[in-house]
């Protein structure tokens, strides 16, 4: 009998969404939708505001990845006002950004995703969560909680605030790092690096090894990928670089921040407040048909792992080589996002250490003075969820005349819809479904960490 199955809200994600699975008269899946529910309008209400104030307004787009919006924003303001940030300011920004990636990934893997794997996708909803992990694995839970807390405090102690940061400013950073702070942070980062190594080992042995069939099949689609790489050697970059758009056959093209709107377009569907970004430059249009996708690419961890030629830090590079041997390049299986996320966790810890080991980070000249002027700047960073684009145009007073934002997760809205449809079609037939099966459909979304 035809019906619509509603999963609302989608839980253990960082946003507001519901899933609607449409069954035909035979009880088979006809279509499925991920309806994104929220709309606030940041692009509009920052108009008319002084450009130098924007980084501490747009950080409030997201309380989990505020550093990403904060820094993409300062880069855009730098561009619009024609300012080159002081080198030490640039380093401090990158340090804070990669540290924020560390916290984010610990949160996602252990607090949000792991319950499905550690407690099982079919376990009762009342225990299938981080509180359940506290009961069944108290030692792991305590360590995870401590590590995330350490990461947050490292950022807060140096930069004032971890959530909704204010220390990134046009022209650089608000304060320099002292030698004492450098030593303290280095110690903290060593502890986090240790934990990152433990995390990927733990995940490979205790999680991925037990869920190979799920990884092999759940939510799998074929798409291109978008991420940021170093222009010199194609290595993975989170803070700064060129954007690389890869097709599903592995061929790719690189573009600079300012040209993003020649490569990417945004499609609006009546059933989602979040738009769907697609590769306009491929000139194949837009289609979410999983058998014949058009213009579809993904961002976020799996994309970054696929798109980069290598990773510049040794531990993560070794993990990347193992990953590629097992899954090829580009790897398409959706649940591999979790594996890729842990490789990135390792990279982010190694990169933080690299930045802190260089004394140049304590250079007191952290800021170049800016002046109001009319201009345009496009600031791009890799947010945990994907390539984050802030595009600002300023007027003569240095206030925002217009703004365009493409946030990290938006690149994945189309692909998540495809994964939900694929998962639902595979798991549900003849009108039969259980709570556990519906949770598995959600797992296809959770992998994207939206």
């Amino acid at each position, binding site marked *: 009998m035809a019906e619509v199955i509603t999963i609302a809200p989608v*839980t253990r994600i960082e946003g507001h969404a519901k899933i609607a699975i449409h069954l035909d008269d035979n009880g088979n899946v006809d279509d499925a939708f991920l309806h994104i529910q929220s709309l606030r309008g940041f692009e*509009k209400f920052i108009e008319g505001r002084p450009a130098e104030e924007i980084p501490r307004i747009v950080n409030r787009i*997201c*309380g989990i990845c505020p550093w990403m919006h904060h820094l993409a924003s300062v880069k855009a303001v730098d561009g619009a006002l024609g300012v080159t940030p002081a080198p030490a300011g640039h380093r401090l920004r990158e340090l804070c950004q990669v540290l924020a990636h560390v916290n984010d990934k610990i949160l996602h893997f252990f607090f949000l995703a792991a319950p499905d794997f550690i407690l099982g996708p079919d376990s009762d909803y009342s225990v299938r969560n981080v509180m359940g992990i506290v009961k069944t694995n108290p030692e792991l839970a305590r360590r995870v909680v401590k590590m995330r807390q350490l990461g947050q405090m490292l950022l807060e102690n140096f930069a004032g605030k971890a959530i*909704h940061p204010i220390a990134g400013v046009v022209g650089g950073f608000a*304060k320099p790092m002292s030698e004492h702070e450098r030593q303290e942070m280095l110690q903290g980062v060593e502890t986090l690096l240790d934990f990152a190594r433990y995390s990927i080992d733990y995940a490979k042995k205790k999680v991925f090894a037990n869920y190979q069939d799920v990884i092999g099949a759940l939510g799998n689609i074929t798409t291109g990928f978008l991420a940021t790489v170093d222009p010199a050697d194609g290595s993975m970059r989170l803070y700064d670089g060129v954007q690389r758009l890869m097709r599903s056959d592995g061929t790719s093209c690189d573009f600079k921040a300012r040209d993003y709107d020649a490569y990417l377009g945004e499609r*609006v569907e009546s059933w989602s407040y979040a738009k769907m970004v697609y590769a306009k430059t491929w000139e194949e249009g837009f289609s979410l048909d999983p058998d014949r996708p058009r213009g579809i690419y993904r961002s976020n961890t799996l994309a970054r792992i696929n798109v980069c030629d290598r990773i510049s830090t040794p531990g993560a590079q070794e993990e990347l080589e193992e990953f590629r041997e097992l899954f090829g390049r580009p790897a398409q299986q959706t649940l591999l996002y979790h594996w890729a996320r842990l490789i990135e966790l390792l990279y982010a810890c190694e990169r933080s250490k690299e930045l802190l080991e260089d004394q140049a980070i304590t250079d007191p000249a952290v800021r170049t003075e800016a002046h109001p002027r009319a201009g345009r700047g496009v600031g791009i960073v890799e947010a945990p969820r994907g390539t984050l684009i802030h595009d600002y145009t300023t007027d003569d007073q240095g206030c925002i005349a217009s703004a365009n934002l493409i946030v990290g997760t938006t690149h994945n809205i189309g692909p998540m819809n495809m994964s939900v449809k694929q998962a639902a079609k595979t798991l549900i037939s003849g009108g039969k479904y259980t709570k556990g099966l519906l949770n598995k459909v959600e797992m296809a979304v959770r992998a994207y960490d939206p």
Partner: protein
Amino acid sequence: MALRIAMEWLGSCSGCEISFLNMGEELMALLEAGVEIVHAPLLMDHKYYGQTGEGKVLTIPEADIGLVSGGALDEHHLCVLEEMRRKCTMLVALGTCATHGGIPALMNGRDRRQSLQEVFETVSTDPGASLPDVEVPASLERVYACDEKVAVDLLLPGCPPHPDRIVEVLHSRLEERSLNLSSRSVCDTCPVERRGKGELRDVLRFFTNASYDRSKGVETMRCLLEQGYMCMGPVTLAGCAGGQAPRCIEARVPCRGCYGPVRREGNQMLDMMNALASNGINYRSVVDRRSILRFSGAHGRLRPLRK
């Protein structure tokens, strides 16, 4: 004694939820002391319409304490807020969006319908799109703080609120005692040096860093308002310092009022204009005065300008 907590997020960014988690190991102590989270979309899988979606009415379980973050921006938020009010013995508005509108209430200063339509007409958006309206909630006419729509038992502002405050609230419920919350301004918790009115007449935009001796602590820095920057410390509720210095001052940047007004009904813009004037600063030199209400634009404080 069990304490059931329900958490919901309306027009929220999830910063308050992350701040909740930033209580760190204290969370484990609370779980051991009998705290039970019965509904919290970020952390656990309780669903609105039953676990297989068979229900017809949005339902949240009963709880002793409800934490609601975010302002009400659409019909769904209203529905959730009203259900939280029905089911939670004590309802707490968590964070400045919930207490005063927060950043999303900046939209209250604009024509909402027009602005939301224009979101779907940006330079990279395929032309001809209109505001989505299928299976997505309709927007309300403006952004509301929670207490404009339901009775709220406790306001806990902050962007985000300090985890220590959240823990205090939970402990006060566990121990069934009352709570003493601050009603001082950020300046009262700020250790900087005050030497009297500054020399500048016009407000400085924050294009250069503040003056201070970087080899010494923040208590030796001269007050940022005296240095000529617009610092909203005088017109903002204390709470971010958590025993140290106010967070932004610690980072050597001026306060922008993210805990909302000192008194619940305070107007941060009018109060700031007065504070500038009493420091000898020409308040007309502030670019974009209305953004002084960026955290407290609900309650009718921010309205679209008449053309």
